[in-house]
């Protein structure tokens, strides 16, 4: 069986502005994760260009991408991906140690409402708490871009709302450009813009006149 070339993304043209909160919606395989990977410097498009502050991420290879991730991007994963052998504070410190102008880990954790659980190991935290540690870890280096892949996917709605609040707070207080993938259409209401994906394209772009408070959401 030969390999079949699959085009994950076709003709996507997108600008993200500073402080923007964008939600990417769409069914599985519609291309939103591929876009997120490209935005996060984990992957490069085979055609077209990706510019970050006027610099093309396709130039400079692996090393350049790594520096881009290190300096400018914060990741929040669906399954948290915390280091089990490090406490909450240490998980955050892991990133601040290699960042240019980070905030202290304690401050990042306070920002996501975990100022009291600094010295707990991941195994001693609930799923929502773990995800908030992951958010603190992502934003402690004051990234220009925060990328969240299904951050509430593994959580119940109540906990999911706490996590969303943390993301919004970071977005508002630090002005971090945020892109968030979700299957959950309800969550789209907290965004400035909502991009609907289908078959590798952005099929619809919606601009929310008002962003809803996560507290008002239910799913």
């Amino acid at each position, binding site marked *: 069986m030969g390999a079949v070339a699959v085009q994950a993304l076709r003709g996507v043209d997108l600008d993200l502005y500073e402080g923007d909160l964008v939600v990417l919606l769409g069914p599985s395989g519609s291309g939103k994760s591929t876009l997120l990977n490209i935005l996060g410097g984990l992957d490069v498009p085979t055609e077209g260009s990706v510019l970050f502050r006027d610099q093309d991420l396709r130039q400079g290879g692996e090393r350049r991408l790594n*520096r881009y991730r290190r300096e400018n991007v914060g990741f929040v994963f669906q399954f948290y991906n915390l280091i089990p052998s490090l406490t909450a504070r240490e998980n955050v410190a892991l990133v601040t*140690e290699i960042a240019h102008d980070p905030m202290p880990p304690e401050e990042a954790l306070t920002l996501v409402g975990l100022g009291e659980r600094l010295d707990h*190991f991941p195994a001693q935290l609930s799923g929502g708490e773990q995800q908030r540690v992951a958010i603190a870890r992502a934003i402690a280096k004051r990234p220009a871009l925060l990328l969240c892949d299904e951050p509430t996917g593994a959580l119940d709605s109540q906990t999911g709302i706490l996590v969303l609040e943390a993301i919004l707070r970071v977005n508002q207080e630090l002005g971090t450009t945020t892109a968030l993938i979700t299957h959950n259409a309800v969550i789209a209401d907290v965004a400035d813009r909502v991009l609907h994906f289908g078959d590798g394209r952005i099929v619809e772009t919606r601009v929310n006149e008002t962003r809803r408070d996560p507290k008002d959401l239910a799913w």
Partner: protein
Amino acid sequence: MSSLDRKLLRDLWRLRGQVLAIALVVASGAALLIMALTTIEALEETTDAYYERYRFAEVFAQTKRAPESMTRDIAALPGIQIAETRIVEYATLDLPDFDEPATAQLVSLPEHGPPLLNALVLRAGRLAEPGRPDEAVMSEPFAKAHGLEPGDSITAVLRGRERQLQIVGIALSPEFIYTLPPGGVMPDDRRFGVLWMGREALAAAFDLNESFNNVTLTLMRGTNGREVVERLDALLAPYGGTGAYTRDEQLSNWFLQNEIAQQKNMAGLMPTIFLAVAAFLTNMVMARLIATERREIGLLKAFGYGNWAVGWHYVKMVAAIGGIGVVLGAGLGAWLGHWNTELYATVYHFPFLLYRPSPTSFLLASSISLGAALAGSLLTVRSAVTLPPAAAMQPPSPPTYHRSWFSRTAAAERLDEPSRMIVRRLLRWPFRAFLASTGLAMSVAVLVMALQWIDAIDYLVESFFIHGQRQDATVAFNDVKTATTIQDFGHLPGVLAVEPFRSVSARLENGHLSEREAIQGIPADATLSPIHDSDLGRIPMPPGGLVLSSKLAELLNVGVGDPVRVEILEGRRPRLSLPVVRIFETYIGKPAYMEMSALNRLMGDGRVVNGLHLAIDPAARAQLLSEIKDVPSVSAILFRRAAIDKFYETMGETMYIFVGFFIAFATTLSVGVAYNAIRIALSERARELATLRVLGFSRWEISYILLGEIGLLTWLAMPLGCLVGFTLAWYLSSAFGTELFRVPLVVTDATYGKAVLIALVSTIACAAFVRRRLDHLDLIAVLKTRE
């Protein structure tokens, strides 16, 4: 093939690197075991066959001169099967290709027919014919060393008379499988050989007509050799008997049996180390495999596979890994065994070599090796068997970490997070870390043990030959000479200094303990060959008693001040009681010393000597040698330089090859441990490391986190390995000590350094090899998948 077996094959293929690494460790253990077992088997079988076919005697005795009529009395002793008398003497040989005089032991052959005992194995030519007094059969190693063949002739000095001897045959004898020149410590086929000549020829040359000076016996089944020795001693005492001895004490046989005993010792120790590490490695790899296959195990059970089917599946996996190791080990072991046996044959001269490894050796080694691998995985396989299907379908609960005492220390505060990750993992699974570190330490230990052999031999040579002896040559006479000989030799060209000695064979006794050992009489102010203590250096000769080597004192269970009963076995054969006045340490032999003039007084002789130590001007060496060759009374000459060279030649070559093998085996060990430890760490942490890459960590930063652990374990393993290596060296030096040799316990810093370096290089190579995988981590998958 069942689906499970197909899975098994694919798993083995997928884990091939780790499978091979473990198999090689198993193979090393199995090979060492098979090598030792088959070598022992070959040596024992060859020796037994040789002794039986060529009627090697069971009791031996030397006298000054006994009438032939004694033969009947000896044969009439209870338990004697065959008694054969002969003449055994020494001669110096002048060989055209050799500027030094060589020494030959002369052994008489019956005038008619082959010897009844200690039959010769003719390798070329024929035996000496009756009535041909100038015909001689030469021992094969000596003939080979000088390129002599039947038909060649040599010049020999027999009791002062120069004779042309014609070599008519080349032979081997069960009596001379291992030969030592008189007074020598290593075989030297260029300087010492055996010549068999007609009985009448030797009787005429040594004035022993109708007499004999040597008798050998075989015994009837069930006869106590000790009793025969006592009765024989009583018979021969009036004729200058120097004490009979059994086959156990016969020089050649004694060395051979010692060698076999050492092989047995090795057979126990070395394979144990390798198989213990193999057991740990299978445990480590199977534990990880079963952990990653939790869900599959749950599924299998959910489908209706029984606990035993699941357990059997994993047992087969271990058996397959062990089996590969055993097959490799059997091949390598058989080859090594053959090689090792042949190596023995260069020092131990057999006419044939029965290397027919029996299935028993292979079966034994295989079951021990497989058993070790299976024992190692027993607990982990059990965990797979007992895993309830419902629990198996769930991911394992995440490992719980705690802030240990270590986290609260000031040092821990200063650690960066990647280092903290390394330390926490080690503290979380301390036992596993300890075993991995121990495995690496074993590799260092094996290296230290192997490399220290070279140190020990160097030290031994230095202590014994360089510091202990200052003479350039030692001349032995075939009988005692008056002290005027000292001046005579002093006037020879190139002789710078002369120092006499007197050696007297004796039996030393304390209670029921008894040892045959010559008493060396040396001058109180000896400088060329003084008493040398291996720890203290030259020690003064105290008057009035015996100075014993610690080995002899230990065998006789005596200390300073204790009396020793001494039965002199020559001359007037006085029986004396002498106090021990000092005990000293030496690595070679078990000598006893006495002040020379005191010894002469006890013997009732005047100022006599039976040998001289000489210091020689190297420039006049050739001239001196040619003169000494013509001195009739000289029975042997030993050169210190030649002894050192021969020592290295004999020990050195073999030793370097063995050290080479052990370096290879030890490297296998460290590669086996390091490769598996790193692969397992990678398998456990791939997701964690990929996450860090996503977070912006560079390849080198995550390499540090992955390899820091093995680095730390290696760092801990080094001192531990050096310590264990020292212990092994200590064990070997005490277990391998014989009456002839004690291996000194010497491990130089350079040896530790080399061992550590070799182990480090192999670990680093493994690390570099596995590290490349970090370049291909799937970063995108970690965003999406649950562990």
